[in-house]
Each structure stands twice: as C-alpha cells, then as structure tokens.
C-alpha cells in the first residue's frame, strides 16, 4: 500500500462533527493517573485500586508478559510511533458511578447532554452505561428487564458478582496471546460493560454503552462482553466520541460476544472519535448452532482506525452479517476488514464494506473468509464498494479467502468509483454546494447502517455527516 498517514502530521484542521458537538477538552480532576513504563507494579496497582480478585490480577500480569514478548503486528502502520510511556494509561476520574444523570458533575453531564444521551435513553434504550476516561460512571437498566434477569453491569462489578461465569468467556473468545495490542489490552483493561440476556428473553429496545475520552495523551482500554442464552435476542449499541484534544489519545478496546444456540446478537458501533484519537478495537464473537451474530459499524471519526469485526461460525446453521461503512476524510487512515471463520455446516456469512475517501483520506479493506474442512455447504458473500472523492484520496482492498471445503460457495464483488466533475456539476445545478453534494453521497452510503438504527440515531448520524462536510474553517 501507499504511504501511511503520518502520525506527527499537524492535527486535522477541517470541520469535524465530534468537535462541533463536544468542543474542546476541558480538564477534569482525576483521583488516580498512572503513566510511564508499563510494569508489573503498575498493573498490580490498577488491580488494587479496582479491588479485583486475584485471578484477574494474574490474568493481567500474564497479558503483560505477552505484551513484551509479542512483536509489533505487521498490519499496523503508524501505531508504532506512539510512545505508550507518554500516555496516561489509567485515569480514574473524580466521579463515583451513579444511576442518575443529575448526580454527575455538571461539566461531564454537559458532554452527554450535547450528545443527546439522556434523551435517547429515556425514549428508546433498554439500558445504558457510560465510560468516562477509564471508568464506568453511569449504569442503568430498565426495571422490567432486570426482572427478567437481564444483566447490564460495569464489567468490574460483574467480575466480583459472577466470577465463574465471566472466567469462561473473558479473553477466551479473543485470547490476549493473539497480538501485541490484545495483550496490552488484557494488561490494562478498565471500564466497559457486561451484558447478559438469559435464555428465551428477547430485549426489544437496544442497550447502549457510550465511551468518552475527555483528555489528551490518554489510553482507553475498555472491555465489553455480550452474551445471549439460548433463544435470546439483544441489540447492543456502542458509541464513541471525544472533544478536540491537544495531543493524541490511544484507544485499544475489546468486544467479545457469545451467541448461544438459536440466539441473536446485533452489535452496532457508531465511532465518532475526534481526529486526535488512534483507535484500535478488537472485536470477535462466536455463534453456536443456528445463532446469528451481526456487526454494524459506522466508522466516522478518529485519526487512525484498526478494526476487524470477526465472527466464528462454530455451530451448524449459524450466520453473520457484517456491515462496515468507513469514512476517511483528511489525513486519516481507516484500516478495517470483516472476518468470518466458518466451522459449522450450512453456515452463512455476508459482508458489506463501503468506504468513502476524501481530502487525502486512505481506506483499507483487509478481510478474511476462512472455511475450514467440514464446514459443509458454507456460503460466504463479500461486497466492497469504495467511493473516492478526489485524486489525493485512496482506497485499497485486500480480501483474503482460505477455503478448505469443497462444498462451500464463496463470492466477492468489489467496485471503486470516483466522484466525477459531471456528477458534482449535476448536484450543484440542483442548488447544492460542493460539500453539501458530498455529504449527501456519504449519507447515501450510510443507508445500510441507517436501516439498522432507531430513528433518533439516524437523525444524529445525518447531522454528524453534514457537519463533517461543512466548509473548512473555525479550527486550527
């Protein structure tokens, strides 16, 4: 591929929606801040502050060992220049976890108000947790779901309440041994949510978790674990944002999902970090017999993003639909790719990747379809569509198929289009300015995601995209 985006390049100067919404970073008081070389002592201190059981401390230390042992993965370009010792790796804000918005300090609550979260929660969410810096500061689930045994808890609390249960899944779906940043995550994880839907319970409204990075030079390592019992159903929405930061921050989160027999999980991510966040998110799920695990990702913000939502189709008749829409506008790199590993018979995967590259942005699709021997009659279909707005911008596609089963059907379609002068003229002749014309095209691309979202989110996303393409100015 071409030259990667320079990390040290000047901070993005264009309009960006995250900053339009959240403004600039404001210093918040922290009770605890840890930075410097990541040592055994540091990890033990995090564990001590969190009052964790010993098994978790051991797991963290084991992860740390691997972090130092594992090489830098080849697929990252740019991350190696982050100086982890410069980052504050754990920030416990001076806030206690609350169940009422009004109990939050005003400045912090203001962020959530600007994002419209309290309103959305009231109207349409079954449950909501919010992570600020390294800790969960708000968690609530609606009563009728609590009564049915639905659990929505900060992962830290879940660990002490249901240790044996959590142990079976935590860092087992996505082992920390897999790559250097998974190991780093295992050592430093903090904040995140545990969602459990018991067998037969179908949660109709989505459950949301919102992650906010409030300061520069911070590392956020939240971990979320979503599990459905047999025949259960849930949609989990994860939102991410940050105000304009004065220096880069680093996000190395993880999502693990487990869909038991006949159950359905849909995970929707709306990533709108400001353009000073380097975003790596490790996402993997397992689907048992006849279960379905869907990923939907709207990747709008961040400076660099590395996300590869993956599903292991373990059970017969299990399926996945994986939709990623990515926008790289300005000096931005989006390296994403969906993965499906077919193990069970009659398994199905459908992957849709759409990208828009503008103002020098680079999009990379790096997908994997693996069909192991014995995954009889597995079907996989991949569709990639890239839209490039100008000659400075790029899109690359690296699909990789490994098919060891003769009865499998695998197909891949890829299309790349450039916005032509005549297309732009046509839209302008309808009264639209250049940036408005572009934002309409982008919104059209996002349609695949819009149909997965409740109406309120569609409105927000539409507003966010129009802000993204507003004329330059105001910053820098």
């Amino acid at each position, binding site marked *: 591929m071409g030259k990667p985006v320079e990390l040290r390049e000047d901070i993005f100067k264009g309009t960006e929606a995250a900053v339009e919404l959240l403004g600039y970073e404001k210093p918040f008081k922290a009770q605890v801040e840890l930075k410097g070389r990541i040592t055994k002592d540091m990890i033990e201190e995090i564990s001590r502050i969190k009052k964790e059981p010993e098994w978790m401390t051991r797991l963290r230390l084991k992860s740390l060992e691997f972090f130092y042992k594992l090489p830098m993965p080849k697929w990252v370009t740019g991350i190696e220049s982050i100086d982890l010792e410069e980052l504050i790796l754990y920030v416990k804000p001076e806030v206690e976890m609350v169940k009422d918005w009004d109990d939050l300090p005003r400045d912090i609550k203001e962020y959530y108000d600007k994002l419209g979260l309290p309103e959305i929660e009231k109207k349409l969410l079954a449950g909501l947790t919010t992570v600020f810096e390294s800790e969960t500061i708000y968690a609530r689930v609606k009563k009728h779901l609590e009564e049915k045994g639905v659990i929505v808890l900060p992962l830290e609390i879940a660990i002490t309440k249901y240790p044996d249960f959590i142990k079976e899944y935590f860092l087992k779906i996505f082992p920390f041994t897999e790559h250097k940043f998974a190991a780093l995550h295992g050592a430093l994880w903090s904040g995140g949510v545990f969602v459990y839907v018991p067998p037969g319970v179908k949660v109709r409204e989505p459950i949301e978790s919102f992650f906010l990075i409030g300061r520069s030079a911070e590392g956020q390592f939240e971990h979320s674990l979503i599990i459905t019992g047999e025949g259960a159903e849930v949609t989990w929405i994860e939102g991410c944002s940050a105000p304009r930061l004065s220096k880069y921050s680093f996000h190395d989160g993880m999502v693990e999902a487990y869909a038991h027999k006949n159950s359905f999980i849909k995970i929707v991510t709306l990533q709108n970090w400001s353009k000073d966040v380097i975003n790596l998110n490790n996402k993997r799920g397992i689907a048992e017999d006849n279960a379905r695990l869907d990923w939907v990702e709207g990747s709008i913000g961040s400076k660099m993003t590395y996300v590869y939502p993956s599903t292991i189709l373990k059970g017969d008749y299990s399926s996945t639909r994986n939709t990623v829409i990515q926008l790289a506008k300005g000096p931005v790199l989006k390296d994403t790719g969906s993965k499906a590993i077919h193990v069970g018979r009659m398994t199905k995967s459908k992957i849709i990747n759409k990208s828009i590259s503008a103002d020098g942005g680079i999009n990379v699709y790096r997908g994997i379809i693996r069909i192991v021997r014995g995954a009889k009659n597995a079907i996989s279909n991949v569709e990639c569509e890239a839209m490039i707005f100008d000659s400075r911008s790029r899109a690359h596609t690296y699909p990789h198929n490994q098919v060891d089963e003769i009865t499998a059907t695998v197909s891949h379609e890829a299309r790349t289009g450039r916005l*032509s002068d005549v297309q732009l*003229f046509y839209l302008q002749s309808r009264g639209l300015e250049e940036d408005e014309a572009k934002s309409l095209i982008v919104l059209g691309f996002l349609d695949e995601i819009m149909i997965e979202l409740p109406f309120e989110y569609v*409105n927000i996303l539409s507003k966010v995209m129009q802000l993204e393409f507003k004329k330059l100015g105001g910053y820098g």
Partner: protein
Amino acid sequence: MGLEVLNLTVRVKDKVVLRNVSLNVDYGTIHVVMGPNGSGKSSLAYTILGREGYEVLEGDIRLDGESILNLETHERALRGIFLGMQDPPAIPGVKLSTLIIASMNKRIGVSDLTKISDPRIVKTIHKVASEIGLPMELLQREVNVGFSGGERKRSELFQAIVLEPKIAILDEPDSGLDIDGIRKVASYIDSLRSKGRAVLLITHYARMLHFVKPDIVTVLIGGEVVARGGPELVFEVEELGYETIRKKYKGD
C-alpha cells in the same frame, strides 16, 4: 425580464465553443435553440449554469437584468435557473427523493438538508410524480442508477416541474422517447410557459415542436447563431436541413 445572453464567447480548454451568441428568454415564453450535434447547444446550457471549464471570454449572462457571471453553479440554481441535462449522470448513494428534498430545503433555507421540513413537500413530490407518470418506485432509487433512457428524461422533467424554477433549460428532453412520450413532454413544457416560466428548449430534431409551439427559434451552428425567427423557422429547418439553412442565412 427573464434570461439574457449577451454577445457570449466561451472557451473550453483551447477550443472556442460559442462565438458572440445573444438570445433572450422572456417569462411566459418558449425559446427553442436548434442545431446539429456539436453546434454548442449543450455548451450554452452549461455556461448559463456556470459549469467549471466553460470560460467566458466575452459577453454577459443576466437574470432579471443582473449579471450572474460571478455566481457559482449552486447560486445560479438557487436564483431559479434549472438545467435538465441531456444525459444526466448516475449518482450512486443519493436517492431521487433525497435529492429533491435536499434541493427544496436548500431553496427555503432549511439547514438539515435531509429532513422533511414540511409535509407539503412530500405531497407535492407525489402529486407531480403521478401527474407526469414517474413511477413512485423511482423516487426511492439512486438518481439515474440503472434508469432507462426514458426514466432519465422523465426524472429530469419531473425535477424541472417540482423545483419550480424561473428559467427552465431543457436539453433534448425528448431524445429516446416514443411519440406518446414526446407528446406528454411537450404538454408539460407548454404548461411551464402558461405558468409564466421562461423555457429554453434545446433540441436537435424538430419533431417535438409539432406538439409545442415555440415563441422564438434560434438556430445555432458551429457555436454561432445563424438564424432566428418564429415557429415557421422550425419547419424550414426540417425541410432544408442544417447545412442548407446555414448556407441560406450565412451565405457561404
């Protein structure tokens, strides 16, 4: 009042495509520009809309007496000039309904372009679509993506009506249509005139002009105006052909 093109000379790259062209399109009239392929008809339309690459060397374009040469394309559109293109491009990602709603919102100053700001907009869209026989299903499809030639023409005409421009420039709105299609298009163009709009109708063939009677006819050949007259000029062109017309009026 209306649209005035005054002594316009236009260059695209290093080729002069229009030379000293003048014409008026008054409100409540239909001005037809006829000419063979490559005569500069579409260039005239593009220049009126300020398309990039169409460099005005001399002359002026005025809307209601005011020069619009310094305005950008979208500003000209917002002042009420509409161009129905001969071969409109496909716009993947943008639904026809979205385009129209955005376009209407822009006109009335609604900042969220995708929002349906007034339920009457939807009503109008549906009413006009059913009037001109545009399948509703087309509204939900991406603009011109997979549209047949006829569907493209219908969609352009549909926009020309629904967006209520002051000046409607229609570039070959009849090409690719059958006789019934042409008859319909002609009657809508006629209705634009009776609503007091100014229509600049660009066409290669005279056949459409059997159904709609123009007020003024200008023949454009090689980027120059070679003849101007009333509706009778249409039949002369039809009878003699462009080559003879050129010889007759230009005398060479």
